[in-house]
């Protein structure tokens, strides 16, 4: 028997537990697994599913006297992952991530006198518009006797904008229990990260062992990463960049060269987790990482001012060199994490310290303090972090070289001889990347977690970060030119599949198995592509879901209902003064949506649905189209991608009438314009980028009304329904000067339940989408039909074939949507079907 005093030592979630029976057994079992300190308690459950979206956004850089209108850098990320307990205690983890980023990023640092960041203006039908900024600093500047620029000598970052770029990552990992009483575990994982100019593949092996009655856990990991760079150099910048050091890695190409590099990382890490007492634990580790190969950033250049070899310089020849970093880097990292729980306040102190040091001369320290306060089912964790680092030995804002970049002399035959600069007179390594400079940063963040009894955790986090030279421990060294700040926010959802399985078993035991099979869709299953049908949830219940759709367009260009020739498109799809040169050859759009629903009462359900969109478009040159004019945007045969958070839907769903055989539901939603409508291509290939095509923008940009009315009926194993819905734009223009068309949609479906697990569905849908009203009020290249408002919208008829599955308390539905008839406005690319997938779980 346990003593009463010991009983009070057992707390979970801050509340004393009555430990008789199964709760004590479960708790003790969890505690005995106590690398549970390393692997959280919930990891012992059969499995988890995670969905997370996040945004990172920088503030504007201080360019001193330049009013840059380049949009600051922004990155949107989506993360999906799952863990599953397999046979023999083997645990598998799978994760998929992607992020899209675009915006302004520094490519160099130069004296202000070099006049970087010059705005590029362009004539348009709306007058002179901003089309970009020149990152070119080449030229001559006056120098004083002490070799400093005669004008404003302050360093300034030279910015360049980046087109939207997509990175995808996939990871898979396994944990193998070798000897569970002693918590010996082997781990293995591998993954790949892929983006247009960079790919890394990595693997990791590890082992954990519990000692000292599992109060001490030792761990060891080894990892290997291979990374390949294949970067297309900036075509605008390339003619001005000296890249002799990479002659063997450059592949000549048009319109610019390709720089290839390979990098390998090998790392080992050992760690120890020690339980100090019943309320505190220490986790520490030390890691050694060795990187070799190409470690440069292929888009960063260093400004070199060639001052000549005279004692008194007249002027400096400003040049740009690709940065040169050492080919080896060894870094040692020490980390420590201390956690202590305070029962009186039901809170946990979390303290982290990380120190690293490498042979580039960089030493870093970071300290982080968190306070996880439990408030009922909520956990609120404010955090503060301070970070400081020293500079790499080879970091310079810009270089001065006492030689000529190029000297011309007359040889003995009277012929001019050109003598280039001597690389030996330049440092072997140099970089002005601000991440290798000395600086400090301070950040403050807040994490909110809400735990639900059924094993669902919803969490969100925000953080503000400021980086400043003056925050460097020991004082600032470089001035404020590289200071900047950013904010990041995310929301995540974690579902414990064990809880779902237990719920399904309980419902089966209680005789509600049939209902459990349809829990994902309220009273009856519906085809995957339908929304606003989940009425009839019990008061106070939640429903969580994930919804994805993938649409494809390729093939012929349609004009109305007929295929159009390239000549027709070139002459009629754009405008008389600027015929179309390009047309879309293929376009895909993928949407990920999170469904969060709460039944206020038996007839009213509130819904919140954030979404993440990814679009990819490949263009082709129209046969017989005119060649591009100098300075005009053009990207024949190249695919471009955009992605990020889309608009967010907030809606109410109301049951108007419900009986055993039929029911009426209505919904009224508002679409909040959280998606970007100002995505731009960078100015590249000597051509202006401008705003990305309408279909590649992230949202409508307007507040929209989204109503629907649904009728559903049941007869035996047949479920049928009709839904009418639409989108009404509530504003006449968005911030980019246009408004998407309104939409009206009518769906009719029937669904046959085969057994308690599976149903098949058939659906027909008619949809009318209006054309775009207004037009971009900023520069857009207008190269093809997708850039003209009249070539959007139309009437569409589709047929959907679906399969619905009941999976232990949750429901999975798939629907393939095939186009039957389309009558498009203007000229548009033919559609080739869409796949919709939904997964819902109510609790």
């Amino acid at each position, binding site marked *: 028997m346990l003593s009463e005093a010991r009983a009070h030592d057992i707390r979970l979630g801050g509340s004393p537990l009555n430990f008789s029976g199964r709760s004590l057994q479960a708790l003790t079992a969890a505690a005995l697994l106590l690398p549970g300190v390393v692997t959280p308690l919930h990891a012992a459950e059969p499995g988890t599913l995670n969905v997370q979206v996040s945004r990172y956004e920088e503030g504007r850089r201080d360019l001193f006297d330049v009013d840059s209108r380049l949009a600051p850098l922004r990155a949107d990320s989506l993360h999906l992952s799952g863990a599953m307990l397999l046979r023999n205690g083997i645990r598998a983890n799978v994760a998929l991530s992607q992020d899209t980023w675009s915006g302004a990023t520094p490519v160099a640092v130069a004296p202000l006198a070099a006049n970087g960041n010059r705005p590029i203006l362009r004539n348009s039908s709306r007058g002179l518009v901003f089309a970009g900024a020149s990152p070119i600093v080449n030229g001559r500047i006056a120098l004083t006797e002490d070799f400093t620029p005669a004008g404003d000598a302050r360093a300034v970052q030279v910015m360049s904008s980046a087109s939207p770029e997509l990175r995808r990552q996939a*990871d898979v990992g396994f944990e193998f229990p070798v000897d569970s009483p002693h918590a010996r575990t082997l781990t293995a994982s591998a993954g790949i990260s892929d*983006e247009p100019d960079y790919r890394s593949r990595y693997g990791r092996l590890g082992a954990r062992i519990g000692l000292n009655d599992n109060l001490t856990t030792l761990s060891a990991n080894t990892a290997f*990463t291979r990374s390949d760079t294949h970067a297309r150099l900036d075509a605008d910048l390339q003619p001005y960049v000296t890249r002799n050091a990479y002659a063997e890695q450059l592949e000549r190409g048009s319109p610019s060269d390709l720089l290839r590099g390979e990098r390998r990382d090998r*790392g080992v890490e050992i760690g120890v987790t020690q339980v100090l007492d*019943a309320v505190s634990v220490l986790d520490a580790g030390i*890691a050694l990482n060795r990187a070799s190969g190409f470690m440069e950033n292929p888009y960063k250049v260093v400004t070199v001012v060639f001052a000549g070899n005279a004692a008194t310089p007249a002027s400096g020849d400003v040049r740009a060199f690709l940065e040169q970093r050492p080919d080896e880097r060894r870094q040692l990292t020490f980390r420590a994490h201390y956690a202590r729980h305070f029962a009186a306040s039901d809170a946990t102190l979390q303290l982290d310290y990380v120190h690293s040091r490498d042979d580039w001369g960089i030493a*870093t320290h*970071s300290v982080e303090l968190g306070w996880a306060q439990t408030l009922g089912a909520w956990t609120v964790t404010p955090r503060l972090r301070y970070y400081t680092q020293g500079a790499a030995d080879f970091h310079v804002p810009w270089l001065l070289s006492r030689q000529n970049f190029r000297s011309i002399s007359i040889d003995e035959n009277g012929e001019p001889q050109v003598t280039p600069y001597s690389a030996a007179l330049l440092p072997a390594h140099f970089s002005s990347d601000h991440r290798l400079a000395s600086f400090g940063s301070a950040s403050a963040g807040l994490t909110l977690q809400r735990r639900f009894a059924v094993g669902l955790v919803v969490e969100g*986090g925000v953080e503000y970060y400021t980086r400043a030279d003056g925050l460097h421990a020991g004082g600032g060294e470089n001035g404020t030119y590289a200071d900047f700040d950013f904010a*990041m926010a995310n929301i995540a959802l974690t579902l414990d599949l064990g809880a779902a399985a237990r719920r399904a078993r309980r419902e089966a035991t209680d005789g509600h198995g049939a209902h459990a099979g349809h829990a994902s869709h309220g009273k009856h299953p519906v085809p995957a592509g339908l929304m606003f049908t989940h009425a009839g949830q019990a008061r106070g219940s939640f429903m969580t879901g994930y919804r994805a759709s993938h649409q494809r367009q390729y093939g012929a260009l349609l004009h109305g209902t007929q295929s159009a020739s390239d000549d027709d498109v070139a002459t009629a799809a754009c405008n008389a003064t600027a015929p179309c040169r390009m047309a879309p050859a293929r376009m895909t759009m993928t949407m990920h949506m999170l469904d969060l629903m709460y039944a206020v009462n038996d007839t009213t359900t509130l819904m919140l649905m954030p979404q993440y969109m990814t679009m990819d478009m490949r263009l082709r040159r129209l046969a017989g189209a005119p060649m591009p004019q100098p300075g005009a945007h053009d990207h024949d045969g190249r695919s471009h991608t955009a992605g990020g958070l889309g608009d967010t839907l907030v809606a109410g769903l109301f049951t108007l009438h419900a009986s055993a055989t039929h029911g009426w539901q209505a919904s009224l939603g508002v679409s909040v314009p959280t998606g970007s409508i100002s995505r731009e291509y960078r100015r590249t290939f000597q051509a202006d980028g401008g705003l990305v095509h309408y279909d590649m923008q992230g949202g409508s940009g307007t507040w929209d009304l989204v109503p629907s009315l649904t009728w559903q009926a049941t007869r035996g194993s047949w479920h049928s329904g009709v839904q009418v819905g639409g989108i009404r734009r509530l504003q006449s223009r968005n911030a980019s000067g246009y408004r998407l068309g309104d939409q009206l949609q009518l769906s009719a479906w029937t669904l046959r339940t085969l057994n308690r697990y599976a149903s098949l569905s058939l659906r027909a849908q008619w949809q009318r989408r209006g054309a775009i009203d207004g037009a971009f009020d900023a520069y857009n290249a207008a190269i093809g039909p997708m850039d003209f408002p009249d070539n959007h919208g139309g009437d569409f008829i589709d047929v959907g074939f679906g399969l619905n599955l009941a999976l232990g308390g949750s429901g999975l539905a798939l629907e393939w949507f095939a186009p039957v008839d389309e009558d498009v406005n203007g000229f548009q690319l033919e559609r080739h079907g869409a796949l919709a997938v939904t997964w819902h779980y109510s609790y």
Partner: protein
Amino acid sequence: MRSMSRCTYRVLLAAATLGLGACTHVEPWQRGTLARPDMASEPAPLQQQVRRHVYGSREAGGITGGGSGGGCGCY
């Protein structure tokens, strides 16, 4: 490779020794608090993943063992 100061190592070693020496035995039934999610090495792994990715693309420190993705951080 530039050697880390011996003093730093000694301080860390002393702290680790003191820390382990200060341990008390905790019976299995006393470990409920230790199993709380906020006592884990990574109390909020999803949050930490986002933050680590951002820090890694903005700072030069703290590679712990490698073997993870994250892209080139070229921006």
